[in-house]
């Protein structure tokens, strides 16, 4: 994942960038997700029945779509 240096490929948060992340586990309405070796806690309140192994489109630490 990048920071917001314009020389980097893309800012993951400022724009409308979606990152595909794999769910590792779900706890207290938050899913621990992984992409490219990095883990983030992701809010999954907008999605139905998320479980380990699901692939999510994540934007600003929120799962928007189950892929």
């Amino acid at each position: 994942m990048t920071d917001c240096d314009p020389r980097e490929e893309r800012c993951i948060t400022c724009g409308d960038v979606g990152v595909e992340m794999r769910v590792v586990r779900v706890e207290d309405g938050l899913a621990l997700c992984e992409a490219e070796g990095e883990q983030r806690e992701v809010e999954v309140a907008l999605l139905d029945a998320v479980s380990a192994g699901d692939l999510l489109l994540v934007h600003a630490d929120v799962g928007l779509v189950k892929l």
Partner: protein
Amino acid sequence: MKFVDEFRDGALGQKVAAQILGVVEPGRHYKVMEVCGGHTHSIYRYGVDDLLPENVELVHGPGCPVCVIPMGRVDDGIAIARRPGVIFTCFGDMLRVPGSNGTLLDAKAQGADIRMVYSPLDALRIAKAEPDREVVFFAIGFETTAPSTALTLMRARAEGVENFSCVCNHVTIVPPLRALLESPDLRLDGFIGPGHVSTVVGARPFEFIPADYGRPVVIAGFEPLDILQAIHMILAQLAERRCEVENQYARVVPYDGNPAALAAMADVFALRPHFEWRGLGFISQSALRLSDAYADLDAERRFPVPGVRVADPKACQCGEVLKGVIKPWECKVFGTACTPEHAIGTCMVSPEGACAAYYNYGRFARDRVLS
């Protein structure tokens, strides 16, 4: 990687480019606007425009959330950030957006506690870790990002985090598109619709474009083949005298969006009567504030802000760039006084801004490679 490699296949790209050539009328000039800054970035990163016929022009729209923030809102943020006891949080690009008297990064260098976060949830974590400080999140973005802010405010409320608040600069995509379609100095033939905004709002809100203005819309993904295919679908509609909303990005975008996200936004936000967009001026009902139910988490009510409108620098032509009236390299300060390191205009700040995309990928003038 699944959903990526197959959408970057060069041979397939050449095939779609040939299909595009097959549906354009020689002698007709087509102007297609990509609404979203993410598309602008992809087009120049992958050289998508080099695969298009000479008479198909891509026009870059206002869909970069950083680029449309007016200077006065940056000044408001800096005023809050300078208050004693405040930890001010925002996305990284916002740090370098110029206000009338410097950037948030300048204010940070002068001692303000300003921290970059990847999400509103990160800002809430800081608030929980620092209960004696006021933590303010400067929220920007279209409908893609607004649900993240909404869910975080709902979580702050549920967990009783009282030292957290939000400056809400969220904007909505439809009003500026309508403003562009009403603009007399811009003639467009069709729109590449925003992919990730549509995961939230769906495709339905764009139906007014074919219905009221007779222009096709194709919602597209962000890989080069997504964009090429969307351009082909738009041009095919024009060739067949069709005009409708189509969804090229159906593998991700449901036609009706995400109802849970829309419900969260309806709960937490209310429409502002009007909001200033950089370069586009004031547009009615084009932005969100916190709803009365969440007024206690509204930083603009918690702290005094200047709230002064600031005119853009005269040398900067971001307005014309955002409306697609001029190309970035036609701006007087592009690549000279205005660079990503020392941006005068917001379009040069964000990697999704049209000027930064042109600059970073070496598009200093119209030098297309035609096949």
